[in-house]
């Protein structure tokens, strides 16, 4: 009887485990070298794999927000980063159609600066969307 019970409950357990795995995989795991204030502006897909966003500078030039972010590879292995900036207005809505994704190669222990300019003066905030290929 107990065997039957275990057999019947197995699919439920597998499904629950799958759901748990998926949710843990989508959690953001920023590199420890990414400052907390910067991490709040970074939407990371998956793991950082040694890529830290060490600094993000935002300035308004001629009514348009301009951002520069420094991506540092904390490991010795070269990494490929896919990233784009998402611009937000004062209520948090996305401004414009969204940027295209860009591919960036960051050499081991190297640093690259990425830059973007808001599409309109309505943009007041931003998110750096990124994922790092292992």
């Amino acid at each position, binding site marked *: *009887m107990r065997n*039957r*019970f275990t057999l*019947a*409950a*197995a*699919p*439920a357990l*597998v*499904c*629950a485990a*799958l759901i748990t795995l998926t949710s843990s995989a989508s959690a953001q795991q920023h590199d420890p070298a990414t400052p907390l204030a910067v991490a709040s502006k970074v939407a990371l897909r998956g793991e950082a794999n040694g890529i830290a966003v060490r600094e993000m500078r935002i300035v308004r*030039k*001629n009514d*348009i927000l*301009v951002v520069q972010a420094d991506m540092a590879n904390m490991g010795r292995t070269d990494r490929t980063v*896919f990233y*784009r900036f998402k611009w937000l207005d004062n209520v948090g809505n996305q401004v*414009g159609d*969204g*940027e*295209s*994704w*860009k*591919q960036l190669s960051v050499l081991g222990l190297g640093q690259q600066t990425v*830059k*973007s*300019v*808001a*599409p*309109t*003066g309505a943009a007041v905030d931003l998110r750096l969307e990124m994922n790092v290929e292992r």
Partner: protein
Amino acid sequence: MTKNRIQRSALILAFAASTLALSACQNLSSPTVRFDRQVNYGDAKAVELVTNEFGSTDLQMIAEKMTGGLLETGIFQGRPTVTISTVKNKTSEYIDTTNVMSSIQTALVKSGKVRFVRSINEMQQGVDELQRQNQSGLYKQGTTAKVGQMTAAKYTMEGELTSIVKQNNSTKDVYYKFTLKLFDVQEGTIEWQDEKEIRKTSKR
């Protein structure tokens, strides 16, 4: 007797839970009509790495860099008028370079910082419409657009795309450079200029 009943209800419950769980894991059908061939819609903004010929990501990156550069400089203070001139394709590939200019123009118009006037290629349609309104005798007087009231462009945009291709047995390297210039029409001076470099390398 009661023990048996409890066991039976536990079994039923477990079956019900597993059925529910299985149905949750099962794929639902999607509202599509498709036959044998696998066709899917993808992300138009995704990085396209099919070949190292000029592609959608190159076009998008060029347009974004040029638009960003123009908006950042503040040259468009006072919403000046701009027109698009030629875009030369100096690469060995067939590339619709007007597409690049079109993307730049769209982004700039949406920024609200600049006004575009008809380019040489778009002028004939404008002239035809003016003639239709003023010479066909079909329209009420006072509602027709007047001839000779078009606003001329203060700036004109000129661009060119060049490439350097190198390859050996195993590697092909393509370097693209897009240069955009903004000329003051009256003065003939270059008021702004920027370029976007792209390197694409493929291995066999």
